[in-house]
């Protein structure tokens, strides 16, 4: 009897030990996340024009005041900017030159650091209209996007700012934010495809941007 009991318990033990994680992600893209949020006080339909820089900023974490930021390789940056442009145009927005008083700006940046931070210094964009200086920052009116730590992730951050609405503290209101986060692994073409898909998804889940 004891032998049969031990046999049954061993069988059940094996069942349990293999049962806690019956499945885990085995594809890189399974780790991809797309996050969006927006300011509830901003009327997107009352704004119709936008400007977009021709480069994607790399957030390196060690930029000094007055120093030019590093840019993402245009091979990838152009693809990101083009995808943002096509999504904005599809939603009925009109692109204008940065000096033509756009209603909003879209500022794309990438980070491969271990922390996603949407509170990085705004002087990363000091080279672009309206030429944010040292001491400026961001604020997110009516919502709080996440700042989380991880270990091997890369992120693409899209910030839609309202250049015509400087706050009393001189911070710039970010009225919409799109975040893509995932593993910086795999082939170049695979990563590009994931980024493209995620930009599309960010707009897809933000239908309130439609004009």
């Amino acid at each position, binding site marked *: 009897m004891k032998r049969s009991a031990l046999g049954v318990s061993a069988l059940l033990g094996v069942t*349990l030990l293999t049962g806690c994680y019956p499945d885990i992600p085995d594809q890189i893209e399974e780790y*991809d996340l797309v996050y969006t949020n927006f300011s509830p006080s901003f009327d997107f339909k009352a704004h119709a024009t936008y400007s977009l820089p021709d480069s994607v900023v790399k957030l390196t974490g060690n930029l000094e005041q007055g120093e030019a930021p590093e840019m993402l390789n245009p091979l990838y940056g152009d693809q990101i900017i083009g995808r943002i442009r096509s999504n904005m145009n599809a939603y009925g927005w009109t692109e204008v030159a940065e000096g033509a008083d756009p209603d909003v700006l879209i500022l794309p940046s990438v980070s491969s650091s271990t922390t996603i931070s949407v509170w990085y210094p705004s002087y990363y964009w000091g080279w672009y209209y309206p030429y944010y200086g040292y001491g400026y920052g961001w604020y997110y009116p009516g919502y709080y996007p996440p700042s989380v730590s991880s270990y091997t992730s890369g992120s693409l951050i899209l910030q839609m700012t309202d250049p015509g609405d400087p706050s009393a503290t001189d911070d710039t209101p970010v009225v919409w934010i799109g975040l893509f986060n995932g593993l910086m692994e795999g082939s170049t073409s695979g990563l590009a495809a994931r980024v493209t898909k995620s930009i599309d998804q960010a707009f897809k889940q933000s239908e309130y941007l439609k004009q």
Partner: protein
Amino acid sequence: MNKIILSLSLAGVVTVACHAQQNLTMLKYSIGFPMGDLQEDISKTSWRGVEGGYRYFADGNVAIGVDIGFQTFFERKEYDTYTINNASLTGIQYRYSWNTTMTGQVEWVLNEGADFRPFLGVGAGTMYAKRITDFGLYRFTQDPWQFLMKPEIGATYYMSGGTAIIVAAEYNAAFETKDMEGQSFLALTVGLVFGD
């Protein structure tokens, strides 16, 4: 940690010598069906569960004892968007729920002296409910202890040598805590009862 506790518990159950007719030990395989709030989180049936128990017959028809069980649930949620207020988050989720149950039981057993003995029981105790949600690179964990009631109905069929086959349906009714909704599930169990 759960595995260690469970292994020790199982070892303890198996090594208890049951030479008195009033004492029974049991070991059961369990299939779990999520109910209520657990079902909203994970809807798939669990085929990974085990339960051990001990019973002492206070008289020919009433038994008291304890049960310790472990049931794991899992479901992969496809690429989808989850919206809370203004925020939307899209990705694939892996959801795990590990439930360790510990109850004191009392049972009313019919057909004293017969091979086939149906029974009805109820128990109370606690459940350590650990819920893990893997969303992209991020993991969200909750692990409260919840009060547990466990009504059960089943039957044993005695074979030679004092060993019996047991089949039972048990409803693990877990109560909500401030951290998490009750993680209730129905368990269909089958196993062996050892006595003398």
